[in-house]
């Protein structure tokens, strides 16, 4: 069995189209790493006296500021940050209070403080709200917006703050948005797996395989497993590449800070107790589920196609359809359900954020979308796997 799987993997990996697509994927990976890891704003900084830093120096600077506030993340921490910020960078602070944009080179701990600084006309807004019979939450004694207003996740236990830039960029570059490495990775999986069965038909190897002792049982399993292993290898490989790049550039500082305090990610309202390290592992899990799903469905299409090319076209269409439909649909249950399809699921940030929205069917069930995705992947593997198995077994080698 192992030998068969090895041969199937060898077949997949010696296909020049697959090699080419992996090369393109690595190029995209390199570009994303360039943008998110080596050239991100986390690798540039400006000190209070106006000195511009870059590279390691800048990273160390950001990390040293973040470390000052490491620990419980409370309204007091925020007040301390705001006051430090206003003292060190008065001009930038002034811009922020006026609602203007600030330099992205500021210490990352200060970059998102605007969300805690009330607008100048806060009193007026409060009075207007009162007049209309509603109320808006009161400010803290330091005159800031309380973190309590951003979600219920931290009612009993304070969140942990720590350096988060590198984790945020890792997550964004890997799976935190549509344009992340996960999407092209799935396309490479489609390209490779779409040939798994169909290439045997077009190469006229089907007859030889099907008369062999294991040709109608174990070999099919070996092919399906090889497809899954390939998918896992691609996604795992990219994850390892990312880990190495980010590890070398940023180290592991801040791994145990809560993802909610990683303000650049806008995950404050997400009611899941994950730290930064767990967040990227969660992202990996989601992308892996999507990869397995994609591999299984593509293998099934491959088993019922005549040529690798038609299999590739159909697989690609089937992969993209839920993505397109979801973009056309208005918000609603169907749109939320389409999230389980790989092309949509790879956006792990959305998987986390959906339950925060009151309109969503996942509302207040922070784990529900992830569980649905995992469940869908298991169902896809079982059903598509069975169908592929039957299709190849009963294939009529009629020439």
């Amino acid at each position, binding site marked *: 069995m192992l*030998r068969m799987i090895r041969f199937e993997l060898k077949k997949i990996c010696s296909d020049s189209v697959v090699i080419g697509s992996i090369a393109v994927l690595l190029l995209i990976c390199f570009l994303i790493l360039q943008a998110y890891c080596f050239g991100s704003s986390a690798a540039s900084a400006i000190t209070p006296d106006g000195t511009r830093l870059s590279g390691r120096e800048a990273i160390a600077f950001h990390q040293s500021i973040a470390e000052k506030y490491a620990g419980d993340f409370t309204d007091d921490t925020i007040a301390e940050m705001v006051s430090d910020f206003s003292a060190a960078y008065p001009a930038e602070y002034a811009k922020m209070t006026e609602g203007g944009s600030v330099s992205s080179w500021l210490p990352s701990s200060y970059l998102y403080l605007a969300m805690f600084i009330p607008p100048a006309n806060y009193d007026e807004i409060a009075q207007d709200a009162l007049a209309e019979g509603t109320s808006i939450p009161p400010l803290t004694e330091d005159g800031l917006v309380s973190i309590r207003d951003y979600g219920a996740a931290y009612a009993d236990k304070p969140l942990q703050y720590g350096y988060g830039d590198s984790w945020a960029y890792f997550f964004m570059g890997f799976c935190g948005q549509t344009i992340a490495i996960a999407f092209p990775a799935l396309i490479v999986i489609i390209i490779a797996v779409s040939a798994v069965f169909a290439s045997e038909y077009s190469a006229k190897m089907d007859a030889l395989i099907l008369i062999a002792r*294991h040709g109608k049982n174990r070999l099919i399993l070996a092919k399906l497993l090889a497809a899954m292993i390939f998918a896992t290898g691609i996604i795992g490989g990219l994850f390892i590449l990312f880990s190495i790049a980010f590890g070398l550039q940023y180290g592991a500082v801040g791994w145990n800070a809560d993802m909610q305090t990683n303000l650049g990610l806008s995950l404050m309202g997400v009611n899941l107790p994950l730290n930064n390290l767990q967040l990227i592992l969660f992202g990996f899990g989601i992308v892996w589920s999507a990869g397995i799903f994609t591999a299984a469905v593509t293998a099934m299409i491959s088993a019922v196609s005549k040529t690798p090319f038609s299999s590739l076209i159909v697989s690609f269409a089937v992969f993209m359809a839920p993505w397109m439909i979801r973009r056309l649909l208005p918000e609603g249950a169907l749109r939320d359900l389409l999230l389980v399809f790989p092309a949509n699921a790879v956006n792990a940030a959305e998987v986390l954020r959906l339950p925060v929205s009151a309109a969503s069917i996942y509302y207040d069930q922070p784990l529900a979308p992830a569980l649905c995705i995992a469940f869908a992947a298991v169902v896809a593997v079982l059903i598509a796997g069975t169908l592929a198995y039957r299709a190849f077994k009963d294939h009529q080698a009629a020439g």
Partner: protein
Amino acid sequence: MQLTLDRLTKQYGDKTALDRIDAVFRPGIYGLLGANGAGKTTLMRLVCDILKPTSGEVAFNGTNIRDLGERYRSVIGYLPQDFGYYPNFTAMNFLLYMASLKGLNAGYAKKKSLELLETFGLFAVKDKKIKTFSGGMKRRLGIAQTLLNNPQILILDEPTAGLDPKERVKFRSLLRSFAEDKIVILSTHIVTDVEYIADEILVIKGGTLLKKGAESTILQEIAGKVWECRAAGQEAERLETRFAVCSRKRENGEAVLRIVSDEKPCAAAVSAAPCLEDLYLYYFQREV
């Protein structure tokens, strides 16, 4: 050991490729003879269980092969008429791959593969990619592959196509030594191959089995129907258009024609001893 075809029928849409074939195979070498499109390949695929019969069944030792499944597959070897190989595999890897599909353990697979490469004169190129092989080399690799699992039933669809005369002779003697106690079914257009190796001959025409039996028995059929005529000019042309001519040569400005015909083609015709080629022409004259 016995392989039985029972009213085996295969239809593609409304085209009947094989029509109620009945036959029994016991150990020995069987040659399938038939024109292009006669149904030889279809018959072999049905016997290999990679094509579902429209009706009828193939039974091995009394059990339908569809029910035997893996147990049947582990005792057959099959060489398809044409197949792809994997151009990027080496000859050795190709055999090892087939061996893994046939469930041979790794050590035995390696030993057997090397042995077969040696037998088929491919040892020197065992680590070369198949895409660099000539047609005959691929054919030999294809035949080698069928023998990996030491099959009880060997099905070869045009095994000698593309082999040069020397390799054909080698193949025949190899097959002879291998076929001891085995059922070997092969098809070919090269009548002499069948003549030399087959114990029994099956003549298929338009999907039906016309004849099955030893060469001498079958030839009885056309005994007295093979003629040799000497004719000149117009007379020779007339004979060629009216009768199935197996061969013609020139002797002393006259044409010597070998003709298969139920009736005596011309007054001067003399009867000749039939051979398989005559038989072939007798049955397929309108198609060849």
